[in-house]
C-alpha cells in the first residue's frame, strides 16, 4: 500500500534543479510525479520515479543528499469535491497531512494524489475504511 518517494536537498541556486534532472535523464529514469518545496535558501525536491533504487544510487554517486520516505497514493474521484471528500475524512479522524501533491497520470477515471502522513498505517486504514482506493507501489511506478 505504500509508495516509496525519494527527496533531494537542493540549494537555491541556478542549475540546482537541472543538476538532478540531468542525472536522472542520463540514467534513463522516468519521473512519475514531483513536488518542490522551498524556502529562501534551500528546497526539497520530492519525486516518485519508476526505479527508486537506481535513482537513489545515481543521485548519491553525483553527491546529492537523498532521502527515502513512504508516502501513499490515493485515487481521487475526478470531479468537484473529490479531494475534499478525502480531506474531510482525514480531518474527522484527526489525521494530519504533512504534505501532498498531485500525480501527473490518471488511474482510469480517477486522479491520483500523493500524501505524506506522520502515521501512515493509521491513515491507510482510515482511507480504506472510508472506501477509497490506495494504490500499491508497483501500480504507481508504472502508471
Amino acid at each position: 500500500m505504500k509508495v516509496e518517494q525519494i527527496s533531494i536537498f537542493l540549494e537555491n541556486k541556478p542549475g540546482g534543479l537541472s543538476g538532478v534532472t540531468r542525472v536522472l535523464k542520463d540514467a534513463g529514469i522516468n519521473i512519475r510525479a514531483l513536488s518542490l518545496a522551498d524556502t529562501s535558501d534551500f528546497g526539497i525536491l520530492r519525486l516518485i520515479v519508476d526505479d527508486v533504487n537506481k535513482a537513489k544510487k545515481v543521485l548519491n554517486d553525483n553527491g546529492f543528499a537523498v532521502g527515502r520516505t513512504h508516502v501513499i497514493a490515493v485515487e481521487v474521484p475526478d470531479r468537484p469535491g473529490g479531494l475534499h471528500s478525502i480531506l474531510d475524512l482525514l480531518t474527522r479522524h484527526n489525521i494530519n497531512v504533512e504534505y501532498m501533491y498531485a500525480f501527473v497520470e490518471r488511474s482510469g477515471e480517477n486522479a491520483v494524489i500523493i500524501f505524506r502522513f506522520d502515521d501512515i498505517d493509521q491513515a491507510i486504514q482510515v482511507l480504506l475504511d472510508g472506501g477509497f482506493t490506495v494504490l500499491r507501489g508497483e501500480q504507481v511506478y508504472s502508471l
Partner: protein
Amino acid sequence: MIFNEEFETLPREALASLQLKRLKQVVERVYHTVGFYRKKFDEAGVKPEDIRSLEDLGRLPFTTKQDLRDNYPFGLFSVPMSNIVRLHASSGTTGKPTVVGYTRRDIETWAELMARSLAAAGLTKNDIVHNAYGYGLFTGGLGVHYGAERLGASVIPMSGGNTKKQILILQDFGPTAICCTPSYTLYLAEVGEEMGVDMRSLRLRVGILGAEPWGERMRKEIESRLDITALDIYGLSEIMGPGVAMECIEGKNGLHIFEDNFIVEVIDPSTGEVLPDGQAGELVFTTLTKEAFPLVRYRTKDLSRLMREVCRCGRTFVRMERVMGRSDDMFIIRGVNVFPSQIESVLMEIEGLEPHYMLIIDREGALDTLEIQVEVSERIFSDEIRRLQNLERRIAKDIKDYIGITAKVKLVEPKTLQRTEGKAQRVVDKRPR
C-alpha cells in the same frame, strides 16, 4: 610504550635542573651567535648570566613570527651554513614563508622525538606506517619519515594527494598506522567509501593526526569510519616540526610535551602575561637542544592550556590540551572575539552534522554579519521543510547561547564545502577593509 624511558619518565626535579642547565646554554649561545638576540636581550637589559632559575626565563623578550620574517631567510641561524644539513619552510599562508635549518644532530633529535611520538601511539618496529603528510618544504612528511625509521617501523612515503592511489596502498600494503591531517583521514574515508571499499576492514589500527585544529567529535567520526584509534600530534616547523608534543594511547587526554627538549609557557595573547597552569592562552616555546635554529620564547599563536596531573602512561612530561585554535584566526564580530574552534565545537555537539563548515563574515550597512554554512548529510536530511528549518534554528540558537553572537545558518549541499588536504581554510572575511 615509552621509547626513551630515561628521559620521558624523569622525575620533575631532575627534569627542572636539566631544563635549567640547557636553558643557560641556549641563552648563552644565541646571545653570542645571533645578532638579533644580542640586540633584543641588551634592549631588555638581560645578560645570559642573569638566567639563574627557570623563573628567570620570564625576563627574556618574546620572539614572534614577524621576527622570523624580518630575518628571512637565514638571519636567525646560530651555526654557519656549512653545519646545516637540511632546510624546511613553513607553508607561508599569511605572507613570506619562514625558513628553518637543521644540523645533523638536530635531525637526529627530531627523529628521536618523532620515534617517541609514534611509540606513544603504541607503534613498534613491527608496524607499517602510511605517511600521507606532504614531503617537501613542509616538515610533516620527512619528520614522520625519519621518526618511523628511527623506531624501526616500515614507512610508506605516500606524501599528500593522489587519494585513489592512497586507498589502493591502504588496501594492498596493509599499513597499521596512518599519519596525516585529521580532515584528510575523513576525505580518505569518503573517497574509499565512494570506491566501494570497506574502510573499517583495513589493517589500520591507529592514526597519528595533526597540523590542524580538530575536536572530540571529529575524533569519534574518524575512529568510527576507519575503525582506528585517532591520536593528536603537535608540532610546528619553527620549533622543529611534528613531534613537539604527542598524545599517548594510554591516556588519550592531552599531548605530552617533550620537556627535556622544550620549555613551554602559556601567556595571555593580548598582554603577554604568563598564565598559571590550567588557564587557556597562547603557547610559547623555548627550544633547549636545537643547534641550527634555537628559539627563545617563541609565540606560536596556538591556543591551549597545560595539564599537570600525572598521566597513567608513566610519562612525567606536562600535557597540553589539544590546540583550540589560533590566536590570529580570531575574528571580531560586532565586538565579540570569536575563534572558529568555538563554532566548530558547538556544531560538533549536534548529532549528525558533518565536520565540514565555512564561516562567511560580511558587513551589511554598519553591521557585521556571520553566515555559517553547514553541509546537509543524509543523516540530517529530511523531506520536510520544517525539520530542516528547525535544525537551522537549533544551530543558530546554540551559537547564540554558547558564544553570544547572532549567526545566520545556511544549509548547503553535501560535499560542496572545501576539503583541503592540508590545513583547512574555514573562514572567509568579505568585510571591506
